[in-house]
Structure formats: structure tokens, C-alpha cells
């Protein structure tokens, strides 16, 4: 057991992870380590299972085999109650923000605090305003999610994710679809929050430049396997075809552009047979 939980340096440890959706294999033996206090990024093309990996770490999906340990606990083996205890130490920022549309910005950020603590309303107010101040949106606390831009919504989601001062925070595609200024703001926030609150950050992204600038360590995944990992500078200088293709944004190469499909010609001929 003690060997499996990894060193105290490692907050999240993934070993030999296998997972498939039906017959489609998503992970085929993946090992990853996420060190405490660091910003670690998982990169890979669309549809490789980056979001799936975050759901494994958060215990929303169970691996077919392999281990996922968070803070020394084996996530797939936890009971529902233990899992919920563990999740109080995790913040997650979803790809879409996932703000509660029926609640104001303030109530969204206050939600986890109200659910998990008995703090008096006055204290909650101070706490929520502090978190919103950290993402620069204290002035927007009365707005509804529908009144926010995409970038603002993500910052609110970030404030909500850190409301309970978690041990770690997971970001699913924090930069996608944002204007350059917002991207810069979110990049700075991720780094600043990681360092000032002393937490551990896991980012899922395919924005090479942004991620290289703020990550301590990067894992590249494709076709169910880790195809490269290292500090951003190491990866950029890597000689491997896979890594070069991804880091320099070349459309085709070892990483296929197509979703797995039967042979093209056979497929077209089959289609003709249907009519």
C-alpha cells in the first residue's frame, strides 16, 4: 500500500491506467505523476481523452484497470462518502464553466461554501468577495451567468473552484475560445493562484504556446498513450516525431488527423449498396 501511494511529493499518481468507452479504447496503459505545488499540463489532440482523464482523477469515471491515487487515497476504491470528502479538496473548472444558470455570480461562488460549512452569512460574503477580487470580478457579483462573457464566466468558475481553498485544481481547456487578452489574464491567474495559495494545478489544453509559458511539466497523450513528457523546454527541443508534430502544430504526421474509420474506399462503396 505505502509503495503505491507514492512519495509525499506526488499529489496525484496514475499508474497503468486503461479505459475504454465500449470498444473505443481511450487509455491503454497511462502513467502520470502530478507533483505538489506544480502546474502540470496534459496536452493532446481533440478527442484523445483529456477530459476523461480529469473525470478519472475526480472519481466520476472508474478505470477498467490501473490505479489513480490522490493524496494517498485510491480513488476508484473509495466509497461515495469518502469520494465526496476527497472532492472537497479538489476544485474543477469545466470546459464550459458549468456555472449554475439560476444563481447570481455571488451565489455561484458561495454555493460550495454554503453547502459544506456553517459559516455565518457575513463571513461568507467576505470570503466570496475575496475570491471574486482574486479573479478581478468583485464588481460583477450581482450579475447572472447569462450576463457574463465567456471569459468572465470562466473566471467566476475559477473563483468558485477555489472557494473552499482546495489542495488541487483542475482546469479543462481554460483558454479555448477566448480573446488574446482574456487568455493572458487566465494564464496569469492560474500561475498566481497556484503559487500564492500553494496548491497543485492540473491543466488540460491543446494551446501549446500558452501552456508552455505557465507549466512546470507537460504530458503529451495521443492514441491512449503518453507519447512524451517533460518540462516545456525539453519537449520543444525533443527529437521525437510525435512531439514535434504537436508542439509545432503540423497538421499531419505520426498523430492521425482522422477519427478511426474503416477504409475510405470500402466505406464509400458500402454506402452505395444501401440505397
Amino acid at each position, binding site marked *: 500500500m505505502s509503495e503505491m501511494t507514492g512519495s509525499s511529493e506526488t499529489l496525484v499518481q496514475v499508474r497503468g491506467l486503461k479505459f475504454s468507452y465500449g470498444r473505443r479504447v481511450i487509455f491503454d496503459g497511462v502513467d502520470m505523476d502530478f507533483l505538489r505545488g506544480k502546474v502540470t499540463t496534459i496536452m493532446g489532440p481533440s478527442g484523445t481523452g483529456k477530459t476523461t482523464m480529469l473525470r478519472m482523477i475526480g472519481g466520476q469515471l472508474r478505470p477498467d484497470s490501473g490505479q489513480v491515487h490522490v493524496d494517498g487515497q485510491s480513488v476508484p476504491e473509495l466509497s461515495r462518502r469518502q469520494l465526496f470528502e476527497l472532492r472537497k479538496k479538489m476544485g474543477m473548472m469545466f470546459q464550459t464553466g*458549468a456555472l449554475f444558470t439560476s444563481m447570481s455570480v455571488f451565489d455561484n461562488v458561495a454555493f460550495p461554501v454554503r453547502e459544506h460549512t456553517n459559516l455565518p452569512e457575513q463571513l461568507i460574503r467576505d470570503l466570496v468577495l475575496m475570491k471574486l477580487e482574486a479573479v478581478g470580478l468583485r464588481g460583477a457579483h450581482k450579475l447572472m451567468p447569462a450576463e457574463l462573457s465567456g471569459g468572465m464566466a470562466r473566471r467566476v468558475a475559477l473563483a468558485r473552484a477555489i472557494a473552499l481553498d482546495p489542495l488541487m485544481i483542475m482546469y479543462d481547456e481554460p483558454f479555448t475560445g477566448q480573446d488574446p487578452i482574456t487568455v493572458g489574464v487566465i494564464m496569469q491567474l492560474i500561475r498566481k493562484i497556484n503559487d500564492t495559495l500553494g496548491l497543485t494545478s492540473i491543466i488540460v489544453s491543446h494551446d501549446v504556446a500558452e501552456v508552455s509559458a505557465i507549466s512546470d511539466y507537460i504530458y503529451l497523450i495521443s492514441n491512449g498513450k503518453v507519447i512524451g513528457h517533460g518540462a516545456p523546454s525539453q519537449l520543444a527541443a525533443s527529437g521525437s516525431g510525435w512531439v514535434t508534430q504537436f508542439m509545432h502544430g503540423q497538421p499531419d504526421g505520426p498523430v492521425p488527423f482522422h477519427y478511426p474509420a474503416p477504409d475510405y474506399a470500402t466505406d464509400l462503396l458500402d454506402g452505395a449498396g444501401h440505397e
Partner: protein
Amino acid sequence: MLNWLQRLGRGALDNFAGLGRASLFLGHTLSGLPSVLAHPRRVIAQLHSIGVLSLVIILVAGLAVGMVLGLQMYNTLVDFGAEASLGPAIALTLVRELGPVVAALLFAGRAGSALTAEIGLMKASEQLSGMEMMAVDPMLRIVAPRFIAGVLALPLLSAIFSAVGVLGGYFVGVGLLGVDDGAFWSQMQSRVDFYDDVLNGVIKSVVFGIIVSWVALFQGYDTVPTTEGVSRSTTRTVVYASLAVLGLDFILTALMFRDV
């Protein structure tokens, strides 16, 4: 032929799987009741929003149905010189049958579909997932209070429907057609039994409340998390809930009013 059989088999299996999921869902919802009772405010908030959604349509429909009943029954009763029985005839029809059933159908169309859409959209926009990641169980926090509210709301709405219906019948019967005012009310009072009629009507509407809320919440929770999925689930809520209400009504009526 084989293809057809295959499709039939797959359809049957899917339906059974759905029923299984729906049963688990109900069990999970019921297991959340203690936690809901600890937060009665959440139920009250839902009761308010569900009630507000349905109240207007229930009032209008109740009045209309009562007035039509007044007209139709008067025409029949007057042939037998029994127009003094208009009061009990209207009241019994409403309290035993039309109140619970029509209110449940309207409730399914108005509040049920809204519940499905609300929960389905929360699922599609990852709000339910997000809640789970915040260590809050959406079954307890979102589904269970709505379920209780739905089960409480429908009997209240049915009662309102019946009461407004009786008033509608009174306007037409006594106001327009000249039935005796005193006879209308006194006959109603002596012929409508609290246990046999009123209570059985309430039981019906509680059962319908459970069914409609269950279908609506399950359809929302089980939706395919896309815009199209949500719109299909909403339609399904109205269809399934309405059919279930009509089917159950027959069974309940057969059991309750055998020897009345």
C-alpha cells in the same frame, strides 16, 4: 425479417434497461428524503415555483370545465326533473375524477415538462457534473426537493381545480339556468362523502403527483446531454406522464369506487 426481429429485441431491451434505471432513480430519490426534510426551505422554494407555473392554467381550466359540466348535466337532469341534483353531480364528477385527472394532465404539460427541461439543461451544460465535483449530490440537492414539491403540489392544485370547477358550475347552473341556490349547495353537502369521495380523490392526486414528478425528473436526469436530447425528453415527459395518469386512473377508480 431478421432485421425487424433484431430491432424489436433491441427496443424491448432498451425499454427494460430504461425501466431499471428509472427504478434505481426513484430509490435514490427516496433515499434523499431525510436530507430534504432537514432543509424544508428548498422544498418550499420549489413548491412556490411549481405552483406559480401551474396555478393560472389550473384556475382557467377548472372554471371552464365546471361551466361546461353545469351546462351539460343540467340538460340531462332537467329531463328527469332532477335539476336540483346539479350540485352533487358536478361536485362528484370533479372531486372523484376530473379534478385529479385533468389537473394531473395539465400539471404534466406545464410543470412536468418544465422540470424535465430544467434538469436536462443542467445536465447538458455540465451543471450536474460540476455539482458532483463540488461534493454535492445533485440527487439530494436538485432532484429530491423537486420530487417532494411535485408530490405536494398536485393534490393542492387538484383541490383548487375542483373548487373553481364547482364555482363555475354554480355560475352556470344557478346564475344562468335558474337552479335553486339552496338546493344546489345543500344537496351537494349531503351527497358528497368525505371519505368515499374527497379522500379518494386526494389519494388519486397524490399517486398522480408521484408518477408525474418521477417521470419528469427521471427524463431530465436521463436525458442525452444535447439540445436535441433535452427537447426529446421534454416531449417524452408529457406523453409518458399523461398515459401513466390515464392508465392508473382506471385502475384506481376500479379499486376505489367498486361499491360506492
